[in-house]
């Protein structure tokens, strides 16, 4: 039944381009900052290169690992990642947010892990409950419970951006699985109310929200980061000021190599590069969705769908922040932003996706989808 073919090299090429571009841009964006903070301009880039290497290695290995092997760990991963969401709250906050877990040299965001654990769990679960998907009881329990608890924990960090992106992936998965729209609305309503209350009633990030509303029409009057980011993009113009020539990274733009690396790219590479990257990500997502639809089974479908969609949601949120359409959220740009956590998780996802692509049929045809794969 399974067509053990070659992985989707087109997808691999896009990922390779993105990671390579990210590495170059992280260096360009971070060299001065690194020199200033650590008296070594290669402080960030040497780590990023290491992570990029690990990422390529993981992609290579995971492409060969049959994705069905993950299914049995789905519940365990979910439980494990939720425990880490509790554990992270006991770590020393960085800039007022307890988002990172540090174990020796390893620093990562459990919310990132949870995102992929949730995708894996939902792929596993949705593929089994396919026929009960229209039943509200099965939708509420266990998915909403899992998401609700996780959201509250992540809010506690606080990391509103992660909650938003995870919720969007969650809703998209349920939507595509065939859940009734009114059920989805019923699920998202309490979540929306909770966020609304947090934002407005308790003043949580109210300033940011005000800044945000203002910055859509007047990016320079919004918050500092948005202003610097927009200035960077704007001064890039159509063709950019040239690699390494950007000025906003000279401490004007906070996090020029992490969450705002897209602004640095926009300044140095201009509109053409930015638009090119947007198109690459769009193609990557379409490619991922196409793999999903050609997956040999439902588990593969939901897994491929979840991975592709979560990458795209991150791109959307990150780029939205950088261009001043969304308030600052702390979501990195997949493959481009500095940081091992984001890069390695995205790459693991790509590895899985490539493995699914190896098991697809080239001509999608209606076929009876079995409950189990192999």
């Amino acid at each position: 039944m399974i067509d053990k073919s070659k992985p989707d090299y087109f997808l691999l090429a896009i990922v390779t381009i993105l990671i390579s571009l990210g590495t170059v841009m992280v260096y360009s964006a971070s060299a001065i900052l690194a020199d200033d903070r650590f008296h070594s301009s290669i402080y960030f880039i040497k780590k990023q290169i290491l992570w990029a290497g690990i990422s390529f290695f993981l992609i290579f290995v995971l492409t060969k690992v049959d994705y069905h092997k993950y299914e049995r760990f789905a519940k365990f991963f979910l439980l494990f990642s939720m425990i880490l969401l509790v554990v992270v709250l006991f770590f020393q906050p960085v800039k007022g947010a307890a988002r990172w877990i540090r174990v020796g040299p390893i620093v990562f965001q459990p919310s990132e892990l949870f995102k992929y654990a949730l995708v894996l769990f939902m792929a596993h679960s949705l593929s089994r409950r396919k026929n009960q998907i229209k039943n509200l009881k099965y939708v509420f329990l266990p998915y909403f419970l899992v998401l609700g608890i996780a959201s509250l924990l992540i809010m506690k960090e606080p990391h509103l951006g992660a909650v938003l992106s995870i919720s969007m992936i969650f809703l998209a998965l349920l939507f595509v699985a065939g859940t009734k729209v009114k059920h989805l609305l019923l699920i998202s309503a309490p979540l929306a109310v909770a966020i609304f209350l947090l934002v407005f009633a308790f003043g949580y990030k109210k300033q940011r929200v005000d800044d945000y509303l203002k910055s859509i029409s007047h990016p320079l009057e919004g918050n500092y980061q948005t202003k610097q980011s927009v200035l960077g993009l704007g001064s890039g113009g159509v063709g950019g000021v040239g690699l390494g020539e950007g000025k906003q990274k000279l401490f004007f733009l906070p996090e020029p190599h992490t969450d705002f690396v897209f602004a640095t790219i926009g300044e140095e590479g201009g509109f053409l590069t930015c638009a090119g990257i947007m198109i690459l990500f769009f193609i990557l997502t379409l490619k991922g969705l196409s793999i999903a639809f050609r997956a040999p089974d439902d588990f593969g479908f939901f897994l491929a769908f979840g991975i592709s969609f979560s990458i795209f949601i991150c791109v959307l949120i990150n780029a939205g922040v950088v261009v001043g359409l969304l308030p600052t959220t702390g979501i990195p740009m997949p493959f481009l932003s500095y940081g091992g956590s984001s890069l390695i998780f995205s790459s693991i996802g790509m590895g899985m996706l490539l493995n699914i692509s190896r098991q697809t049929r080239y001509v999608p045809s209606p076929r009876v989808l079995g409950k189990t794969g192999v």
Partner: protein
Amino acid sequence: MERLEHTNESLGGFVSRKQRARILIGFLGISVLVLSLRLFFLQVIKASYYKLISEENRIHAVPLPAPRGTIKDRNGKIIAFNRPSYTIFLIPYEAKDLDLLSQRLAPILNMDLSWLKEKLKANWSKKYERIKLKKEVDFKTICVIEEQNQDLPGVIYQVEQTRSYPEGSWAGHVLGYVKELSKGELSGDLVSPAKSADSNEPTSLDLDSPGKSSYRLGGSIGREGVEKQYDDLLRGKDGMTFLEVTAAGKILGPLEDRKPDLPTKGTDMKLTIDLDLQAEAESALATYESGAVVALDPKNGEILTLVSKPGIDANFLGGALNPEEWKEILQNPFHPLLSRTIQATYAPASTLKLLTAGAALESKVAHRDTYLSPCFGSYQFGKRAFRCWRPEGHGRLNLVDAIIQSCDVYFYQLGLKVGLERWSHYAKLCGFGEQMGVDLPEEAKGFIPSPEYYNKKYGKGEWVKNLVINLAIGQGEVLVTPLQLAGFYCGLATDGTIYRPHILKEITTTQGRVITTQSEVLRRLPFSASTLELLKEAMIGVVNDASGTGGLARISDVTVAGKTGTAQNPFGEAHAWFVGYAPAENPKIVVAVLVENAGHGGTFAAPVAKAIIEKYLKRGIIADQKDSIIAVSSLNFGN
């Protein structure tokens, strides 16, 4: 598809899944479109706008202070220049441990640095912006800092220009000083702290006037004296260098695509002041606490000497004064900040008798041989007796002898003959009661009482004629500045022409062109030639007659002329006056000397005037010969 729907139930799920996926893809597509449009808007449509703002964002314009113009005396000796001095700065970012640093630095700089930590805490965001720790640090301290630079991270020094006045003691009044503009001053209300209790008028700087718009915070401005008067010329034009900076202000280096605007040095100038004469006047006044000397060239109004005691050091005023030091200056009973020569007014006493005499002669109420009631030491008018300074009296005198011997009784009567109205009229024609328009700031006007003034003060017809009795001998409410008196005597010494006194002799423009101040006739005395002739004869007599009051101003081979004065002072000893000129036949210098709280003018002021005149005229002879001497020496010894 329709067929497939029938064949398998789960196939329906598959189709619906695809439809739903299409909706999601549509959502993704729209998101990409929105983002791309936004990018297009920011990066293409608004690109130039944002680029401009971004440029400004990272450019830090650092002013390049223009070197201030040098000031020289009339003989080319430097009296104000710019001295390089060391200033110590701290770059907070590089100073890791502030406590340790201030502990180490405090004894080296000999200052308390406890404020440092507070200051840094307040704006840590500006951690790259250097903080000025101490100005004018001596070279030895710099050496110590240089030696220990490993232990003093973030401590740097830089050479700055400090205004320096080699002749500190008197320069405060004549030259003024230079000090940094404060925030409050920039915003418009510049109230000089250098105001003494004697003057209530606030000095305001018109920042809107053309040429003054270039003042900037931290920039320097001339205060008082020549530095203030000619600030526009001396200041030059500050340049700008453009540096690329980070958001926190860390300087990354010069901006490549923008050349610095170089500063334009201020105009060099030469004053009319004669440094040697100034020193002579200083030393002649050395034994007195307070006084003033003005020496003018009667032929053109050039100010040769301007001394106000107590002097104030311009270097001291321009330095970093602490509040205690200011308080001390302001509370000094001698008001050292007051420039007595032009800003203070005094009763001119008998020196003004020449005005009364001139007015009498011109209004034909007296002539040379008018003899009035003889002096027996006092003059009875109504119920009041007006004393002559000489208790035993002067007997019967004509006008010339009355001037020579300064008989008060004679002038009481002469004053009554002239009358207040005429006296006041002539006083004003002679320039009293109004500014002479000297090119120095805050010149006082003095005061000449008029009938209108008394009408206002006492009511019309409510005041008595005897007010003019005191005015006639320069007492009462009449007030003059030493400069005004010197100016009046310039007229008396010459054919009646008074030139506007001025201190700026010439300037050298940046293009090297020398522009000399043109002398300007201020006024002519309302006295005829014969009147002037008579007054001159009397003034020569004052110094050279055996009975004259100014005998101590006599010089053996030069005819000195002048008049003494002794101004009654209710607070202590009288102020001693002497105003004179020499040589009488061809006046080259007019000197007005005031010694506060000394006593008789002939005793205390005349010798001071003599010393100055002697110095000037004798050195003048040497100066005249200098050219030929130099020529000879270069011929004989030139190698």
